[in-house]
């Protein structure tokens, strides 16, 4: 069985929009990720945690790793973007945000069509991802 067409839905406005936003957000994430990781490997940027120390501690649970390296979990890395390893986390965060951007982008299209259930799905999905990203749940708050 070969699928070559999914009918009108494959070409619908929301599908085009979702695919385009997802693609560009993913590209942006990968560019930041690869450039920052290359900088980290090449030593062009200073490290928050030296690779040798990371290698020494990566057998231990994350709690021990954080305690030994003095790394602050959550969004602290955002203040350390001039460090190679922290800059890599920006690329990862951009990739994690790609589907938020895509769902937010298609919500107005569903609203215009009065598909309010799908507007709700988009808003809730974005809300769930923002909640996960916020760090509130991890800190026990």
């Amino acid at each position, binding site marked *: *069985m*070969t*699928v*070559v*067409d*999914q*009918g009108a*839905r*494959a070409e619908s406005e*929301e*599908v*085009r929009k*979702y*695919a*385009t936003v997802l*693609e560009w957000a*993913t590209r942006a994430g990968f560019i930041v990720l690869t450039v*920052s*990781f290359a900088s*980290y*490997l090449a030593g062009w940027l200073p490290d928050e945690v030296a690779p*040798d120390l*990371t*290698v*020494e501690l*990566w*057998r231990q*649970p*994350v709690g021990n*790793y*954080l305690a030994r390296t003095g*790394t602050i*979990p*959550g969004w602290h890395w955002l203040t350390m973007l001039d460090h190679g*390893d922290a800059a*890599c*986390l920006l*690329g*990862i965060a951009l*990739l*994690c*945000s*790609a*589907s938020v951007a895509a*769902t937010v982008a*298609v919500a107005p299209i569903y609203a215009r069509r009065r598909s309010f*259930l*799908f507007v709700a*799905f*988009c808003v*809730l*999905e974005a809300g*769930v*991802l923002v909640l*996960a*990203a*916020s*760090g509130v*749940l*991890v800190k026990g708050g």
Partner: protein
Amino acid sequence: MRSGDRRRLLQRVGFGLALIVLAQAAPAASAPLAPVSWWVWPLALFGICFLLGIVAVPAGVGGGVLFVPIVGGFFPFHLDFVRGAGLLVAMASALAAAPDLLRNGLADLRVALPLMLVASLTSILGALIGLSLSASTVNIALGLVVLGIVVLIARAKRADHVDPRPDRIATRLGLQGSYFDLAVGKEQHWAAQRTGWGLFLFAIIGVIGGMFGVGAGWANVPVLNLVMALPLKVAAGTSGLILTGASASATWMYLDSGAVLPIVAVPSAVGMMLGARLGARLLRVLPAANVRRIVIALLAFAGMRTLLKGLGIWM
């Protein structure tokens, strides 16, 4: 040499190389680190994940489900960091493929959105559970889950018969579509069935994916195809689209907890993506059935290793 002989030789060489790599890596996971330069590890991860990416496509499984048991069982990283990287691997692979799948009609946005919402929500719960358990408990549970996945993959059936009548929820949500089937030369219509069951099963899949960092392609496709009656190719494409959101929520949880180490996660994700692209191109020449058997054998070995590690029998 005939092409059949060449293929068999290629398979044996590939399987032999995989076993040699794993046999070499297993003692390294428990013994003190040899004095090797730190950059050897990201390079090794890139190489292994590149190979895993090549075999994942013809074997019909996602990268995350191969990554976590194999890297967790045979590399020296703590399972917290392996799971964080596994989620990134699953998400990055899905993100790379999703836009084209959507444009080609092989992923359905309306089907994906409600299922993605449920799986994203429960992935958070899974991540919270997974991060609160001890490594040995997670290893035992992961070993059992991976061995269960091996049985599921080995016995997986496919349903190509589609029923164009949607159930009540699918009618309300408009979960139906059509595609042109070249085999019979006509437009085929499909509609989602048992949508309530699908939502319930995706809630469970989300918990497992977040807890073990294994992604969820191994479970998404059977649920979409066998339970919700989507055609197999639409099920596979939609599964990837769902993963872009479901894996993202769990990845955020691991990232916020400090369990995503760039030195482990980045080369793994990039290696897996490049390997998967090559695997997709080699799909026509690689003997998919035999690659699938090799992957099942590797997963069974890695699952057993993870279980025994958790039980303290094979450290």
